[in-house]
């Protein structure tokens, strides 16, 4: 059964999640991808405020398609998270509690997640028309000049996610692949025994 959560997230809730847990996330999340991360780092370096206070918040690495008339948002799915790795430990140190993206993260990010108590969720890459149905509203809050890369505030409802890396640093990619491969070698072993 999926765990229902509402963002922003408490550290205790985040620390209770385990890699592989299915989550349905509601509440407020902020989109930011490559260009917005670079600008956020510039803000911090220059002592300027960020577009939103990261404390307890969740960033969704995503750039949606333009919003069609009568809809809340266009198609929206995750982009590859590892490209944001250089900026992530800094944001985690400023209280960022969760991230949504796709693919594995680097060691420095995982260490910072463990230290600060943060979670990394995977959304289903390429299921963007389906996930548009989980977004109730979308508002550009900073850097409109970046187009699809602007920072957007999204109100979401039951966005289906997988806890990809938990606050203990366990990751569902390695665990899932190992479990599948173990099932394959187990069934091969059974086949051999049947033949013998």
């Amino acid at each position, binding site marked *: 059964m999926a765990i229902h959560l509402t963002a922003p997230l408490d550290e205790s809730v985040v620390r209770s999640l385990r890699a592989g847990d299915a989550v349905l996330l509601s509440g407020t999340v902020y989109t930011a991808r490559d260009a917005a991360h670079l600008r956020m780092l510039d803000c911090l370096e220059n002592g300027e405020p960020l577009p939103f206070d990261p404390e307890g918040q969740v960033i969704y690495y995503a*750039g949606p*398609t333009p919003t069609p008339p009568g809809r809340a948002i266009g198609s929206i799915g995750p982009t590859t998270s590892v490209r944001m790795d250089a900026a992530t430990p800094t944001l985690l140190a400023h209280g960022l509690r969760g991230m949504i993206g796709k693919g594995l993260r680097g060691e420095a990010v995982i260490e910072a997640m463990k230290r600060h108590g943060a979670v990394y969720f*995977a959304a289903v*890459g*390429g299921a963007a028309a389906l996930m548009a149905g989980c977004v109730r509203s979308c508002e550009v809050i900073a850097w409109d000049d970046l187009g*699809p890369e602007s920072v957007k505030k999204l109100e979401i409802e039951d966005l289906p996610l997988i806890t990809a890396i938990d606050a203990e640093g366990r990751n569902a*990619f390695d665990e899932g692949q190992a479990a599948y491969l173990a099932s394959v070698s187990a069934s091969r072993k059974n086949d051999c025994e049947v033949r013998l």
Partner: protein
Amino acid sequence: MREITAAAVTETVAALCTEANVLLPPDVEEAMARACREEPWKPAADLLRILRDNADIARRERMPICQDTGMAVIFADVGQELHIAGDFAAAVNEGVRRGYVDGLLRKSVVGDPLRRVNTGDNTPAILHTRLVSGDRLTLTVAPKGFGSENMSRLKMLTPAQGVQGVKDFVTETVRLAGANPCPPMVLGVGIGGDFEGVAELAKRALMLPLDGHHEDPFYADLERELLELANATGIGPQGFGGRTTCIGLRILTLPTHIAGLPVAVNVSCHVTRHRTAVL
């Protein structure tokens, strides 16, 4: 000499951009349906079903299948007996502009690779033009997402590395790509030619039907074997484990130099989009 107008080119490209982004090619859809039927690992099968549902919603609601509506890669085969009245490249780019602006597709192109300002209309396109016999113009629009493009690789192997070298390189590319290119992947493999030629071959291989095979049985067997190797990695849908790491792999080859064995792997995803029209 037969003549068509640049305006007809623009109109066709615009329509192809929009259609390609909301409708999966039938062979890709069939490959996904087959993967759903045959995936033995339940979490993987569940993910594959979500991806199929997504493609259904996109078709029904005319929404882009993926938010990365790609760089517009365009293959144009121009018949040498055909005259195109007007500026061809400008007409293609105007088609991309209209397709992406009017079709509410994402504008994912920056005008300069280092200074990175979004062009706002997804132009310019990547345009590959070939002169062919006849009096027709064949246009293929292939929007290419960069989650998978970024995982693509090229290597100049030595002749001594041979077919084993190609197998190792393709498998290594799949492993390095892992969860990043939104598996299940589609792989276009180019072998031979020269440095820039092999990369284009790999991209063209992505346009080939996934339910077909190379006409040379040697390469048809290699397509099957490489696909099996990719699916033995256990990466699975979205990288969470399973058999379905790759739903299709096609090879294109070119003659090459006595000193070389270029190989390129263009990684694509379950949203491998391309649409063709003949004018």
